[in-house]
């Protein structure tokens, strides 16, 4: 009975958790439009680290980004410059990701404000000290009171908050609600930078073509020759798309499904062994009982029918308890994880439940009825003497 409960419960729980995790991953993919692209300096992209120590960190200059605007296959070209420093408001302090970018940034990121406005071209031209802040920053520094119009300090410089971004949550497992965006011109003035840390944009139509256009333009401007195998080895930049990331996540999700299936399989197997053990342990006792029943006049078919009904009943009861326990545990885990990761939603796999139940019943019947059948073929005294 315990074996059945554990086996079925494990299958239900593991597949439920698996489904929830899958939901989180698929949610990441859904978020960004597949048209969004990003251009990074250096051959390794953002994986190379953010430090100015890595090669080609300054490869993408603002004249490059201006040149990109001549392309017809990409739009909303927004160079991004990261500004190191803390954000301070009164006695509150936080460690945000501060970026300077142009108004196109809001367009290619598909983001909205819940309060105030985005910065515009006028702010760019005047290098205004204004910022649009992420929802987490608004919460941390202003405790959800209206932040618009408040003056805060970024990297020891005073800024006026003009907008608060709508919460987005995790994108590719990174919290994007702790960002602060200022006009690019302001960031350039603060850092004296001539190059972008990243350029975000959107493909107008087909992004394979957009990719090729961006590459061709930059290779031409940087005087890069493409190796014979056509690889990107010589490039001093890297283009990424949300669609590419989606593909990666897609593979992750497939391997996750495989993983879950594997876990479910293992749980089924372990559960099956558990059930088998329970059934086999009771064989001795069962065999004696069968011997006794035969001794007092039970027919073979009386015994088989009884054992069959018992096995089915037992496994079904155990299976139902297992399902309830599995779902309950899954629910508790979901509730706990949900506090930390809001994308994690409670989920159960109906298919797995039926599979688990079927497995429990089949194992129960096979390992309950088979020994019983053997026992019922013994003479009563042999069965009674069984050890």
């Amino acid at each position, binding site marked *: 009975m315990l074996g059945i409960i554990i086996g079925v419960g494990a299958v239900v729980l593991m597949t439920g958790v698996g489904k929830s995790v899958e939901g989180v991953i698929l949610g990441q993919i859904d978020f960004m439009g597949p048209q969004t692209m990003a251009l990074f300096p250096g051959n390794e992209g953002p994986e190379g680290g953010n430090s100015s120590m890595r090669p080609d960190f300054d490869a993408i200059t603002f004249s490059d980004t201006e040149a990109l605007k001549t392309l017809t296959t990409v739009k909303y070209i927004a160079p991004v410059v990261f500004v190191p420093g803390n954000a301070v408001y009164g006695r509150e302090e936080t460690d945000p990701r501060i970026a300077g970018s142009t108004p196109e940034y809001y367009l290619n990121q598909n983001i909205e404000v819940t309060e105030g406005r985005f910065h515009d071209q006028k702010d760019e031209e005047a290098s205004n000290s204004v910022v649009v802040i992420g929802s987490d920053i608004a919460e941390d520094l202003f405790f959800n009171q209206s932040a618009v119009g408040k003056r805060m300090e970024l990297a020891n410089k005073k800024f006026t908050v003009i907008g608060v971004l709508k919460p987005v949550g995790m994108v590719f497992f990174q919290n994007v609600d702790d960002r602060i965006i200022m006009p690019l011109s302001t960031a350039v003035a603060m850092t004296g930078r001539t190059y972008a840390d990243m350029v975000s944009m959107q493909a107008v139509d087909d992004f394979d073509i957009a990719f090729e256009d961006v590459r061709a333009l930059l290779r031409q401007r940087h005087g890069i020759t493409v190796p014979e195998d056509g690889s990107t080895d010589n490039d001093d930049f890297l283009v990424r798309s949300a669609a590419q990331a989606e593909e990666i996540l897609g593979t992750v999700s497939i391997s996750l499904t495989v993983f879950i299936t594997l876990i479910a399989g293992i749980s089924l197997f372990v559960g099956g062994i558990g059930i088998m053990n329970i059934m086999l342990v009771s064989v001795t*006792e069962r065999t004696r009982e069968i011997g006794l*029943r*035969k*001794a*007092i*006049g*039970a027919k073979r078919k009386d015994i088989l029918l009884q054992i069959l009904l018992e096995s089915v009943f037992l496994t079904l009861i155990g299976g139902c308890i297992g399902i309830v326990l599995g779902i309950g545990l899954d629910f508790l885990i979901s509730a706990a994880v949900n506090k930390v990761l809001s994308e994690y939603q409670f989920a159960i796999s109906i298919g797995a439940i039926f599979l688990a139940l079927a497995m429990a019943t089949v194992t129960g019947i096979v390992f309950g009825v088979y020994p019983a059948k053997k026992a019922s073929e013994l003479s*009563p005294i042999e069965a009674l003497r069984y050890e």
Partner: protein
Amino acid sequence: MSSQNNPTNGFNGEDSPLIQTKNLYKSYFNEGLETKVLFDINLTINKGEFVAIMGPSGSGKSTLMHILGFLDNHTEGEYEFHGKAARTMDEDMLAKVRATRVSFVFQAFNLLPRASIYQNVMLPLIYHPIIPAEERDSRVNKAIESVDLTDRTNFLSNQLSGGQKQRVAIARALVTEPELIFADEPTGNLDSASGIQVMKVLQDLHDSGHTIILVTHEQSTAEHADRIIELFDGRITRDTEEFKTRWAVDEDKLMK
């Protein structure tokens, strides 16, 4: 005994002896190894007898009882029950004989451990092809009463003392009122007071017309019977009519 418990179909009526063995042999085979246990047993037991089988441990008493009670097969020779040869009976026939004709009080009780006294005693009635379901309850209660356990009817059998288990086993054996009751060392695990109580129940059964075959290695227990068969190394070495020298009813009174 009510006629419904005596279906004569399949048997040669009541003329043949209840039990007759002719040159009966029994061997056990374990992994090809033959253990000869019974040799050339010739035995006739008639209806209404009270037979005690005696003999040292390992002499084959239980084995003989199991064969006579249709719980085990013999190896050679013939065993006839009401004139019908046991080896000609098929599984269903054997089940029917076990359900209606004979019952067994085992040396090791063999109760269902997690079932109540009531359920244990009820068990044979479930497989009885004739006794109607509505008679079961009264029969069970009557059987439990006859072994003096009415106040413990709903106890689980693993909550009982050895003597009480033995009495439950007897109640289970008599609940179908079979014509033939086997009792394998029914007093072996009991103190003399409980032993006498058990013998009283058996003697009462005998007095009401049941045939009793019991195994014992105690002379005092055997003396309750009116025939003693002695086994030694698998052979019958003595078979004598006795006049009962002990009456459990009187002994029971003496004890009190």
